[in-house]
């Protein structure tokens, strides 16, 4: 947080919107690439779903693929990659907390989902 903090007349030269436009948003090409990857990964998921021999190992794979998809959307479409670090902290903080609660509860209930 601190590194964003200008000690002297505060970020006076920039209006906020200029500030976040500084690092330009990715262009349409990048968006399209992300879209293609997302669709492709979803396709992969569906395909491996139907491959019977993979049944016993496929669940971790699903989770990995969905993490990648999640990251793609968050980084490019929600442009976290280009935006202030603070936003990522807020979001990732929420995700981490939620994930740990889920994992903690699963451990406590000894549910072996999947």
């Amino acid at each position, binding site marked *: 947080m601190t590194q964003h903090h200008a000690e002297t007349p505060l970020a006076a030269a920039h209006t906020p919107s200029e500030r976040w436009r500084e690092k330009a948003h990715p262009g349409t090409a990048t968006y399209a690439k992300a*879209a293609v990857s997302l669709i492709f990964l979803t396709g992969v998921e569906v395909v491996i779903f139907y491959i019977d021999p993979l049944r016993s190992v496929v669940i971790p794979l*699903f989770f990995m693929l969905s993490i990648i998809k999640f990251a793609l959307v968050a980084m490019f479409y929600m442009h976290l990659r280009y935006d202030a670090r603070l936003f990522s902290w807020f979001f990732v903080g929420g995700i981490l907390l939620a994930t740990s609660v889920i994992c903690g509860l699963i451990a406590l209930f000894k549910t072996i989902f999947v």
Partner: protein
Amino acid sequence: MAQAAHAEHAPEHPTSTGLDNRKLLMWLFLGSDCLFFGSLIATYLINYGKSLVGPYPHEILDILVTSVSTFVLLLSSFMFVLSLAAHTRGDYRAFRVWVLCTVILGCTFLGFQVFEFQQFVHEGLTPRTNLFGTTFFTLTGFHGAHVTIGVVWLLSLFFLSLRGKLGPDKNLSVDIAGLYWHFVDVVWIVIFTVIYLSGVVAGTNAAGG
């Protein structure tokens, strides 16, 4: 709260971090919403496989249909980044076209959900039937509610733009609406993986041996 954030169009003061208040609020809200969905997902997982009577997930969930609706939602996210880009360029006509596409895709997704719910009820799965029904309808239902709010929000942007009230100074409003929309999308990515793909696989594994 989302609307509230959206509605607050204070004149731009310089802020301590140089970041806009509304955008900060939105991100924090999304962080908070993660815990909302996290708790629902935890409920789902803990009750997974505990239903005493069917229908069970692997008997009733249709991966192919849902992968199409997943595809639709992903595409809508793509549409929305295009509309934000258009708005940033100042191309408001393109902006409106893409927003409308987003809305249509969002509605399509909701249509799929309504269809799915109806189908399930038809096949004997209601929220009252068993634990799977209870947790499934609640989790996906709340996701659907988020999508609905998103659709209304995007529509309001569309109409504002039609009336010329969404000029360059409102770029941030578009951006923030987009954050919400994409968030709804990533939540669905998780739900699709957990309930549909993994849930069905685990169910058939357990049932089929």
